[in-house]
């Protein structure tokens, strides 16, 4: 079964969570040993940021890996979740939920992101499939997704304005370890991110849908010959995309307590960078890449000042795409990538 890289990868992937956990612990301890709490605090916040980047990067890498489609609506889905949650809470539509209004708002936000993602599928892939028989070989979905980016972003601007808004979460509990202060929302979001991504890996590796997705990634025509109902499986990619972007948006909102119509832009570009670092189309590559970019961002702000991130990250991306297109870590992609 070596023709399916995803399957060949499955044994190695089992040990990956342990490796990542070990690396994180080592980094934090190393940070405390070398630079004391200042560095350790940057490492911790870098990892929290990295968890957000990693979830969005997984969304990007999933659509490219399975459908050969660079989906530019992902940053907007991320933003939609936060803004819808804020809009519903601020206008009192969720007053019945009482103290849990913030959670209901975020759940509604994630739902909207999933629905929006399905809308994109309806007007790009399903339509293309009906008209041309195949959508994975064209630049058309990419251009359409740019159109949807404009639609969603400006609908939010129209209805909720362009200001940055405060999204209050009612708990402030902190945990103190080794003199580090870690917020409970941050810790919970980190754990939730790991669960979501691990769940996705499980779906791709061990379920019937996962096998169908990997078959489509190899070749949509062969997949339908083998009995995969491509028209019913492709929407699942978009549901997963909406879910991942939505959850990342919700976690970002809880962690930083701020929402704005432009909150997805920076996260989106950083997630693309993370995906390229880890290797396009590879789930574990996106996870490692996300953590690396998050760490690189907080540490380079600490040492070199704010604007240096852009050159470092994108310079690295440019070099990697040109010299080592399969990414720094060379993890196997979901499909062959059709490039």
């Amino acid at each position, binding site marked *: 079964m070596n023709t399916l890289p995803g399957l060949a990868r499955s044994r190695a992937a089992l040990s990956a969570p342990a490796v990542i956990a070990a690396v994180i612990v080592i980094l934090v301890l190393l940070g405390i040993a070398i630079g004391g709490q200042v560095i350790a605090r940057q490492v911790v916040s870098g990892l929290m940021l990295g968890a957000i980047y990693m979830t969005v990067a997984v969304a990007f890498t999933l659509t490219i890996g399975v459908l050969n489609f660079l989906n530019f609506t992902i940053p907007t889905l991320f933003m939609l979740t936060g803004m819808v949650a804020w809009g519903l809470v601020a206008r009192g539509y969720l007053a019945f939920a009482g103290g849990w209004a913030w959670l209901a708002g975020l759940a509604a936000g994630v739902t909207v992101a999933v629905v929006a993602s399905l809308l994109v599928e309806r007007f790009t892939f399903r339509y293309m499939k009906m008209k041309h028989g195949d959508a994975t070989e064209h*630049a058309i979905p990419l251009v359409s997704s740019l159109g*949807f980016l404009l639609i969603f972003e*400006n609908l939010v601007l129209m209805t909720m304005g362009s200001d940055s808004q405060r999204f209050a979460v009612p708990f402030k509990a902190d945990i103190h370890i080794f003199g580090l202060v870690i917020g409970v929302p941050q810790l919970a979001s980190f754990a939730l991110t790991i669960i979501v991504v691990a769940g996705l890996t499980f779906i791709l590796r061990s379920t019937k849908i996962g096998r169908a997705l990997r078959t489509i990634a190899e070749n949509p025509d062969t997949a339908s010959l083998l009995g995969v109902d491509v028209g019913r499986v492709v929407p699942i990619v978009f549901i997963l995309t909406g879910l991942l972007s939505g959850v990342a948006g919700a976690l970002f909102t809880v962690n930083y307590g701020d929402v704005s119509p432009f909150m997805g832009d920076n996260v989106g570009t950083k997630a693309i960078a993370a995906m390229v670092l880890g290797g396009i189309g590879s789930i574990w590559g996106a996870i490692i890449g996300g953590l690396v970019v998050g760490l690189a961002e907080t540490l380079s702000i600490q040492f070199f000042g704010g604007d240096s991130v*852009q050159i470092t990250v*994108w310079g690295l991306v440019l070099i990697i795409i040109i010299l080592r297109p399969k990414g720094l870590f060379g993890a196997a992609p979901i499909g062959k990538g059709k490039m």
Partner: protein
Amino acid sequence: MSGYLSATLAILCINLIFAYGIFVTAAAGQINLGGAGFQAIGAYGTAWLSASAGLPVSFSIPAATLIAALIGFLISFPVLRTRGVYMVLATFAFGEVVAGFLLRSPVFGGAMGMVVPAHIELPAIIVSAVVVTLLTFYLMATRLGLAMRSLNDDEEAAIVMGVNVRAVQVAAFTIGGAFCGLSGALYAHNFAFVEAQYFNSLLSIYVLLFVLIGGAQTAWGPLVGSLFFTLLPELLRIGGSARYVVFGVAIVLMMMLRPEGIVTRDLLRRLSPRQLFNRRPASGSAPRD
């Protein structure tokens, strides 16, 4: 002429030159999502040469154009190692690196931007746009243009027919870089101010849409695309953000109904030359392919 009209006309001409810069590479089958980077090179090149080095506009604009062409030539070798989504991302990364570099360079004013005192008037910009348009039409009629088209349509067949793929692609990137650089230089002198934040990824996305919506098959495409994209938001100005929603819907619909862009070779074949200058039948009365 009112200030509003002349400003709109200037930005239309600059967008048109910019779109032809992206079109030349797209016509050869390469998607360049780093257009803003090349435009920034032209804009900052002429800004530095005229404001800091004190050179006349007649020298600084051609020099900035040449610098952008040279960088297009140099970057084409590594970028052309990539294909498809990878090339989109490589050129996107190039644009981000250029913007990040300019933002960090004290010589170019950093985040404060640069004031460009030497002003050029609208007629010069219109003449430049006309020259670039005619040049592109001429280019597409030459052997090089034919080779570019063949690469876009079927690369393997082009190789079999003896097209030197690498040479054609490098030439397309160099010419494209020059056009983008020229549009940036004109922008700098017309608006008297450049800042790195203007040359962002959204600008690269917009100009790529000009070309893909207009149609990358013929040189008419960017012309129609720039007109559509520059004038439609102006016509829809009443609605604020709503016009961009309409705009986004237009893009999605366009991709569904005319995925090869508004102007296709097929469309041109169906129209007589006289109707062609009307530019009207493109909107949907033409039969679909």
